[in-house]
């Protein structure tokens, strides 16, 4: 089997297998590794996500001092009555936690990038606790996520320098949405539409890191990536579809990424990075 280059092709090429398993089998063949090796690697990635969350220290601060402590703030807020309810509050806390761990040089799992490392765990780990998914199901959900991620990388981009933040947080969100649809028992078509809707709703998001660092606004953008994934997943589960076919949405994402000016593609020279605050804080960088 050749590697999937479109969502339509991936959905058609399952040979009767569940989608997660078709993705697993296809990757094993193309890499020449056994199913057991692949499953073991994926299990270690899940473990590394859980470890990162567990080892979070709300006292830690990033090198610049701009980032740290917000995961702890959100978790404390979650101990009382919250606006968004316990599940969404935990999702937001987990996204901040992982983003801060990354900014503070802790061990994380790039998913698909380090800057967007919080989105997938923020959706999956709280989901497991609130809805009771098993470890095995979470691993299968990660295969679904990476299957869609491969197509995002092939058709559009997963690099902020190339396609802006839509390629990083947007891609992470578009990987997390179908993973949740899978966990909720949705169909492959619903997974595809959740991916498309997640991309559409973050289309054009620029990469404008203050001082060129993976801190501001990157950490908090993990929150919108996770929340956007859940809303796209819920829309798909409700039977709502993307009017634009999913593959065409990814092509539009690629085109938008190419059209973004260089100043908004990870150069730290436009958008939030060009604000008076940022210029004052990082004069040499700009």
């Amino acid at each position, binding site marked *: 089997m050749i590697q999937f280059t479109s969502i339509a092709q991936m959905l058609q090429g399952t040979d009767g297998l569940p989608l997660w398993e078709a993705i697993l089998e296809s990757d094993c063949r193309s890499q020449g590794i056994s199913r057991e090796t692949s499953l073991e690697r994926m299990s270690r990635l899940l473990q590394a996500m859980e470890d990162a969350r567990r080892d979070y220290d709300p006292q830690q601060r990033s090198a610049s001092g701009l980032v740290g402590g917000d995961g702890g703030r959100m978790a404390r807020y979650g101990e009382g009555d919250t606006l968004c309810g316990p599940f969404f509050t935990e999702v937001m806390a987990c996204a901040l936690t992982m983003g801060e761990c990354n900014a503070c*040089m802790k061990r994380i799992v*790039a998913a698909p990038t380090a800057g967007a490392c919080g989105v997938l765990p923020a959706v999956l780990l709280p989901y497991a606790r609130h809805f009771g998914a098993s470890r095995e199901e979470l691993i299968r959900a990660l295969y679904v996520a990476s299957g869609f991620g491969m197509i995002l990388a092939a058709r559009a981009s997963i*690099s902020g320098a190339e396609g802006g933040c839509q390629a990083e947080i947007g891609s992470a969100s578009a990987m997390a949405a179908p993973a949740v649809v899978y966990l909720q028992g949705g169909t492959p078509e619903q997974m595809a539409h959740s991916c498309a809707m997640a991309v559409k709703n973050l289309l054009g998001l620029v990469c404008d890191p203050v001082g060129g660092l993976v801190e501001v606004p990157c950490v908090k953008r993990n929150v919108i990536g996770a929340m956007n994934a859940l809303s796209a997943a819920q829309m798909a589960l409700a039977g709502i579809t993307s009017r634009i076919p999913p593959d065409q949405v990814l092509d539009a994402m690629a085109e938008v990424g190419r059209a973004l000016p260089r100043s908004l593609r990870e150069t730290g020279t436009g958008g939030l990075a060009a604000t008076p605050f940022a210029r004052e804080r990082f004069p040499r960088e700009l």
Partner: protein
Amino acid sequence: MNLFDILGPVMVGPSSSHTAGAVRIGLVARALLGQAPEEAQLLLHGSFASTGKGHGTYQALVAGLLGLAPDDARVPNSFALAQEQGLRFSFDTCQLRDAHPNSVLLHLRGREGRKLEVGASSVGGGRIRVFLLDGLPASFDGELPTLVVHNTDQPGCVSQVTGVLARQGINVAALQLNRGGRGGSAVMVLECDQPLPPSAAEEILTLPGILHVSVYTPDKEARL
């Protein structure tokens, strides 16, 4: 591109290109030196120079030189570790021509006195590319077992080296050869499909005209 290029690597943050890739550059440079480095001068170019400090690029490069993997929790503390292990290092910036924005030149001296110059770039997602060895152009990414042979530019070197590999059942995936001038020093880079056993490197070193042999073996597991 495979699944684990999308999900993973497990790495110390904050940036796959500025941190994880920088560790890998250090690791490859250490392997190519073939001995523990005692002194390292690192010249940062482009985005490595301008945003490297905030991304932990400095600590990451030193960590790699010490043999730490990109997911080693000690990466942020590599400077202290370097002092313990007797590695002296200094940083400066440089401007390279036509180089990738995330590039570094490393001037290394090993415990046993060997000197080596390595130029390498971090090209995204933790992937790297070595573009310079001892002033000669090179181009390899460390994804395959890689044999680097420094030799005198004289007839027969390539055939003798590939002969040793052939006898050991090792397939060459890509081969580059560059020389400083006719009859001068040359560098051969052979990316191979099979792991390179120490016996192959030892045998190659006994051949006429061969000055130095080093082997880089990618640690795929560490990148996950």
